[in-house]
């Protein structure tokens, strides 16, 4: 895989999309976006471009390449990418992160489709969420996107759990959703009074698949809740297994969210629908081989 500096020196001969981040070799975005591009017979290729922090300075060169059509951005550049853009979607501004850049005739526009990914994943259960509270486990960028998505469902508060609530640096509300920072000692009571639990921590991610942010005594409090994990590898995390065993009303995995955010990016760039089922099948095959 090329690093950004090499990529801009020897760019692809035709139109291209890319994801930048570091590390980015594990990214499944090229897999599903190239499926979508081929599905619609769009003559372009999607690449993963490794971009360590010191290589970010080359981003302007990438934007200036003749074949550049659009960009996804992942850790650690989701905030920094906002600096060279001409316009940022208000929701992305509120979240403080951009993961999709669109090349428009008026300039470069930044969006946050992680918010859309959460919205689309939860939409089917909207009736169970309206007016309720949500527990968000973790306080990083994915947690902020998750909190911002709650507005769509009219949820009245996000209880955000952090190992260091005082220094997490969250606003009092995000995208109009009031936020309360909490410590993990308060998790049990918060679970009991919430309709939705979202895990945005890396606990349970491959290869540490036995880990979960929810402890054994807290599992019964997942009963009748909508439980979602942002992790897609493994497809069934320890947290999701706990939720199923407790009798959760719905259990949603990160694969749904991952494809939904990709679909939103693809729609921004091309105006076309994403072949979600085809992409999901390819992802399942790929993850099965991990």
């Amino acid at each position, binding site marked *: 895989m090329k690093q950004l500096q090499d990529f801009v020196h020897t760019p692809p001969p035709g139109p291209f999309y890319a994801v930048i981040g570091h590390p980015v070799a594990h990214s499944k975005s090229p897999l599903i976006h190239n499926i979508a591009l081929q599905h619609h017979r769009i003559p372009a290729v999607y690449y993963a471009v490794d971009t360590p922090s010191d290589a970010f300075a080359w981003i302007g060169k990438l934007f200036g390449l003749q074949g550049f059509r659009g960009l996804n951005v992942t850790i650690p550049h989701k905030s920094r990418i906002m600096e060279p853009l001409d*316009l940022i*979607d*208000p*929701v992305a501004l509120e979240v403080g992160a951009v993961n999709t850049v*669109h090349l*428009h005739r008026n300039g470069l*526009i930044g*969006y946050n*489709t992680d918010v*859309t990914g959460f919205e689309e994943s939860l939409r089917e259960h909207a009736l169970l969420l309206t007016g309720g509270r949500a527990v968000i486990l973790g306080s990083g960028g994915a947690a902020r996107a998750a909190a911002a998505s709650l507005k769509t469902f009219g949820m009245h508060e996000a209880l955000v759990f952090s190992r260091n609530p005082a220094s997490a640096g969250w606003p009092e509300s995000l995208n109009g959703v009031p936020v309360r920072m909490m410590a993990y000692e308060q998790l049990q009571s918060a679970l009991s009074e919430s309709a939705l639990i979202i895990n945005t921590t890396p606990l349970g991610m491959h290869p540490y698949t036995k880990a979960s942010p929810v402890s054994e005594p807290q599992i019964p409090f997942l009963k009748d809740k909508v439980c979602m994990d942002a992790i897609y590898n493994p497809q069934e995390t320890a947290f999701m297994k706990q939720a199923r065993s407790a009798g959760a009303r719905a259990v949603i995995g990160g694969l749904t969210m991952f494809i939904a955010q990709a679909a*939103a990016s693809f*729609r*921004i760039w*091309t*105006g*076309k*629908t994403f072949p979600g089922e085809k992409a999901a099948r390819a992802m399942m095959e790929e993850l099965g081989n991990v």
Partner: protein
Amino acid sequence: MAHQSIEVNLPLSKVYESLNSPVDFPRFMSGIEEVNKINSQTYEFKTSIGGEEYKWTTNIIDDLRNTRFAWITINGNLNQTGTIRFTPLENGTRTRIDFSLDYRPFFGEAEGELKAFIESSEDQLLKDLDFLRQAVESGTFKEKEEVEESEVSDQQQAAV
């Protein structure tokens, strides 16, 4: 709040481009006389209802390309909120537009002509969207702007 939906025989991106700038709203919304851009997120709306002038400033709160566009009023003498959702139909070759529009006074209840204006907004929105559909499909909606853009482009080319 008024809600209306229409389907347009044009691809999603083309329909979105026609509707993502409030300055174009007076071209199809008969209840709005003028919209001026203050900055990329802020627009000033003007209209008159029953001889009284209404002026309000809006902020775009959500603009996800090819997906949705929403705004709220931040000050003025009429409180307008709007959401437009775009849904691709038939693999993106046609588009459904779901338009929600709400008017209310900032204080108290609407009375007289303003009340009638608000009560008729649902029917009016349907008429406006039907006009929009015809204008967008026939290519006349942004005709003037495209001519102006192409003139600018010609001038730029001449300058180069």
